[in-house]
């Protein structure tokens, strides 16, 4: 047997010390614990400790039928609840080779983009707050409220909707849905200018985040950092463009790419994405075709035995759902490739040799949702 030689690595160098950031730290946006090794004020090493909000969702899926799994996926990345539902629905529909009505595809695309906007609004609100601008928080939440009202009117809830069902939707959209979405787009086009005036153009914010936490394109690819964070480094990874689903092949939108990869450009990427999302919604909202809101589905769904994979673009990156079915009504194994978990992996390498105060800015720009990391 080959002998394994361990070279002892000193856990801590001279003049270094650890501090715990979290699990109850406002800037980690949830229960994430970062053990930061510092030398003075400089971050030398960083170790994330996950699992504080682990609920075993993948294991729970193994005892649930496919329609029941939908409501569990809401609870992973709760800010992109609809998009998570979409992933499981697409997986089941593709496995059963069900053709969903055109109306469903339109509605799903619109709702996915609304979800993306409200997620980015909350991110913008928290980003401003983490950098010391509390006003942003109120403005961001005020505008997010408008989307949540639209959601509440059509689906009955504000955060965890469980609105998609395999084959279509749970119920039809509210008759006022189109009118309200159009009113919101008109309203938000005005308000996003305020966002720019209050934070984007602000010298303090720009100087504090420019050149901080640089993620190179190679690093983004090798750590699989997807979503706006990856695209700010020039990694073209938009699932909506590369593997279009629902209506994304019909609409015209830009994939936002920057090459700088620093905290400021991750900010720009998200701001531009909100504008692109509004563009997508505007193209679809007036021509939702009439028809059924769900395809005819059997009462008990059994996927044919085999392996399935489906990916979608959530507000934070690529969500992959991998499912092994043995022909029963419950999956044999369900695995979620959550975007936040991969994005968290890169935090150590991009925050080395920055100040601990900058770590807050870097963390805010990666936009973590902790329940999605732990699942």
């Amino acid at each position, binding site marked *: 047997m080959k002998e394994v030689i361990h070279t002892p690595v000193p856990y801590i160098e001279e003049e270094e010390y650890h501090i715990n950031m979290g699990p109850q730290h406002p800037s980690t946006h949830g229960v994430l614990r970062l053990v930061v090794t510092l030398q003075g004020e400089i971050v030398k090493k960083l170790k994330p400790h996950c699992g504080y909000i682990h609920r075993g969702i993948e294991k729970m899926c193994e005892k*649930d039928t496919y329609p029941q799994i939908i*409501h569990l996926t809401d609870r992973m990345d709760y800010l992109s609840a609809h998009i998570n539902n979409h992933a499981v629905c697409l997986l089941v529909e593709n496995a059963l080779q069900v053709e969903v009505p055109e109306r469903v595809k339109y509605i799903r695309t619109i709702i996915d983009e609304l979800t993306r906007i409200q997620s980015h609004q909350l991110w913008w609100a928290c980003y401003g707050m983490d950098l010391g601008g509390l006003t942003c928080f109120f403005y961001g939440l005020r505008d997010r409220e408008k989307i949540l009202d639209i959601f509440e*009117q059509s689906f*009955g809830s504000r955060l965890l909707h*469980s609105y998609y069902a395999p084959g279509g939707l749970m119920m039809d959209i509210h008759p006022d849905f189109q009118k309200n979405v159009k009113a919101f787009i008109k309203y938000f086009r005005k308000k996003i200018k305020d966002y720019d*005036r209050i934070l984007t*153009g*602000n*010298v303090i914010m720009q100087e504090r985040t420019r050149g901080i936490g640089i993620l190179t394109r190679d690093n983004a690819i090798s750590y699989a950092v997807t979503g706006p964070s990856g695209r700010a480094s020039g990694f073209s990874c938009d699932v909506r463009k590369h593997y279009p689903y629902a209506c994304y092949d019909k609409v015209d939108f830009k994939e936002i790419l920057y090459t700088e990869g620093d905290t400021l450009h991750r900010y720009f990427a998200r701001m531009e994405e909100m504008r692109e999302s509004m563009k997508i919604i505007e193209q679809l909202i007036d021509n939702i075709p009439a028809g059924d809101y769900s395809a005819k589905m059997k009462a008990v769904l059994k996927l044919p035995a085999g392996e399935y994979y489906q990916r979608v673009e959530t507000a934070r990156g690529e969500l992959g759902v991998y499912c092994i079915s043995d022909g029963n009504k419950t999956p044999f194994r369900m695995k979620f490739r959550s975007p936040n978990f991969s994005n968290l992996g890169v935090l150590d390498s991009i925050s080395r040799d920055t100040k601990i105060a900058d770590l807050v800015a870097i963390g805010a720009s990666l936009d973590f949702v902790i329940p999605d990391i732990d699942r």
Partner: protein
Amino acid sequence: MNSFFKYFTDIYSGVKSLLTGMSVTGKYFFSPGQIVTEQYPENRKKLLMQERFKGEVIMPHDQNNQHRCTGCGICETNCPNGSIEVISNRIDSGDGKKVRIIDKHIYHLSMCTFCGLCIKTCPSDALAWGQQFEHAVFDRAKLTKTLNKPGSSILKGIE
């Protein structure tokens, strides 16, 4: 000389960007018509929830205290977390056949995740969403509810 100029242009652009931001906050400060805050506990009387709002699962009864539930138990099998227990009896319907009749439809609000599957799959549309959202109680047992009212019966013609 260059850095000297840059020093002053930096100050100028910095002050300008701050003033731009302040003009936004100032605009809202001086226009109280745009206040969106709701005074929650005080506005209870006129607070209207959306008609589809998912507050809790209820079983609507008509004025004769009749509901539509047959006691089939489909909602119970479809609930992902066992929030529903259907207890039904079999009684003689008079013409020699045994029919099932609901005894108790128990709903654990404390376990419900508001997925809506029970309401969607009920074959006789016996369940609906209620708009009540203030669920805080001092005793956990109060969150276990019996949805069919005492003395209620099934509406004629529901199979």
